[in-house]
């Protein structure tokens, strides 16, 4: 019953989906760390990324050039994020911090509804797939759809790039500084509102990237961002809001727990195992595994 083969397959499956969950959660936590606001519409940016990928592949490039379409889709979501931040969110950051969170919540929730309705209205309720010509790949004893492995590899590369930029570049230093002291970074001569804009763009582009990568795996339809919203926020609670290593570790943890729970306890409750972990964290360590205790303004 508990064959080693099944255990290995379950482990691989869990890690792979976990990395992709981490990519979804990373955007939420990154935006929060810089702008101190929660973007509730994160799932919708994932969805837009998936639709862009579908349109590029199905209408222009064909499935063999999927890898070319991915960065284009992510960039498209990035550009949309910049526009949204500049038009709708920047104005609130001139206001005192007390009202900021409420306003950000209202605006991002409205965006969520707007994007979802637009998608249904423009593209219809059907599901699409950009299709994939990638062959089934054997990872150890486990057969995996080529597209899923590609998504995993791409996600790892994106995460590594992101970490590299943060740790080794000037811009990364500015981003890290801004997440620790908004006033401090301004007295160092950096326009913090410009940082906000880039951070928002990068954050939603991460979700859009996840959407583009998973388009052939999870299909493309107006509410396909739901998985990002649900898992993304679960991970942020587990890993700690504002912690980037927290997002990665919690993502993989969630993927593994769901995978093992579904395989060895009961597959009907696959989504419940993650919730149980969330509850446990809220009781035992409310700020999350790597959550920060507080921050100087």
């Amino acid at each position, binding site marked *: 019953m508990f064959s080693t083969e099944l255990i290995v397959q379950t482990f691989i499956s869990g890690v792979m989906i976990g990395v992709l969950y981490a990519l979804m959660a990373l955007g939420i936590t990154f935006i929060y760390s810089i702008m101190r606001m929660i973007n509730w519409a994160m799932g919708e940016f994932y969805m837009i990324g998936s639709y862009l990928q579908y349109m590029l592949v199905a209408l222009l490039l064909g499935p063999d050039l999927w890898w070319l379409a991915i960065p284009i889709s992510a960039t498209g979501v990035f550009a949309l994020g910049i526009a949204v931040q500049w038009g709708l969110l920047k104005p609130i950051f001139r206001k005192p911090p007390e009202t900021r969170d409420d306003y950000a919540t209202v605006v991002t929730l*409205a965006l969520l509804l707007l994007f979802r*309705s637009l998608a249904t*209205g423009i593209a219809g309720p059907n599901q699409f797939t950009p299709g994939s010509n990638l062959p089934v790949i054997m990872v150890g004893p486990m*057969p995996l*759809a080529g597209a899923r492995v590609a998504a995993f590899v791409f996600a790892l590369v994106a995460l590594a790039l992101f970490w590299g930029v943060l740790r080794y570049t000037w811009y990364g230093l500015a981003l890290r500084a801004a997440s620790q002291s908004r006033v401090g970074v301004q007295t160092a001569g950096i326009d913090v509102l410009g940082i906000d804009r880039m951070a928002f763009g990068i954050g939603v582009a991460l979700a859009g990237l996840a959407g583009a990568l998973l388009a052939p795996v999870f*299909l493309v339809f107006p*509410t396909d961002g739901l998985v990002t919203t649900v898992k993304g926020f679960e991970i942020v609670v587990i890993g700690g809001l504002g912690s980037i290593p927290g997002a990665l570790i919690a993502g993989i943890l969630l993927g593994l727990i769901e*995978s093992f729970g579904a395989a060895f306890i009961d*597959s009907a409750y*696959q989504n419940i195992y993650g919730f149980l972990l969330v509850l446990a964290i809220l009781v035992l360590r409310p700020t999350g595994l790597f959550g920060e205790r507080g921050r100087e303004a």
Partner: protein
Amino acid sequence: MKRRGLLWAGVLATSFGAWGVSARAQDINVGLIVPLSAPGDATGGQLIRRGAELAVDMVNQQGGVGGKKLKLFVQDSQGTPQAGVAAYRRLVTEDKVVAVPGFFHSSVAIAVNEVAKEMGVPTISVQASASDITAKHYDIAFRTHAVDPVRVSTWMEFIKQKGYKKVSLVAETTDYGIGLTEETIAQNKSGKFGLDIQKVTFDNKATDFTPQLLQVKNFKPDLVINIGVGQPLDLIVDQATTIGLLPNTPMLISYDAPTRPQWWKLHEKDGSGIYFIAYYSPKSPLSDIGQAFAKAYRDKYKEDPVYGALNGFGAIEILAQAIKNGGGAEPKAIVKALESGTYKSWPTAPVTFPRADGVYWHNWVPPVLILHYTKPLQDWKEAEIVVQYSKK
């Protein structure tokens, strides 16, 4: 400045909602509750809607019902009971409809019927198959669709014909999925089929079914019955192919999703060899109004009508006839008329809704088929007919 942004966003977001417009006094208002967004099967809902809308146009073009025009009010059930019940209430209290056809998801139909029982406006389920929809014998509950026992009998016939012994049921944890699973197990016992049945369940909001499918693969069944609706159905087919379960193990899809054009767009590579339930074959003849509808549908949508659209059309036609012949556009009168009259719908056989026993109360059952795609991109009308089962 910021308020304008908020208002703008809010207006646009809600503008894609219900198109409730007040009607003139000479109109007869009819509701329609179908899934138009996830987690409901939005394609299924859209097809029923097409049929109903075209039927309303056709009836109105021929002078309406007793001189009055029909007006259709469409609501999205989203495939969830809460949204469905809210939709029904809205239709009855605000839009003052006299009947509510539609219903694709069983859980929605069951929940709405509990409310309809009190509010009195009859419902006609055109594609929801769980027994409880009519088995509770509510006056207001009607159905023009196969009930689950008939669906299961059809595939038991298929299993017997093929000599399968080990069967895996991969079912969603909704009324539909659980109902079909239990009915299959019950018929296995009562019909003494002697099958070894594996039951594997999943949450219909999940996106990864690999754990369940690995269990199925380990069981080494002769047949897998895919009892998922909407996205899970497609994801299961894809993921089963990835882990090597398909195409070697035959798979039966529990409803007619493969008849839709979207099927081959999504499953160009792994859709051939699939078996599926269907309720309509071009080989079964259409009535005169059925033919007129099929032609109008082809002209408008450039594709042949499928079962969902035909039944959506049929429900409106039946209602129009019931109102015209039965004494008026009033819910109680419609209920009486439906029970006692004989109606013409898209098939040649007449349609009646007698107060029969058990699940067949107020129920008309079309024949149920099992079709088989023998090659990729095959037109569903050319698919092989493997079983045709009629309720005796």
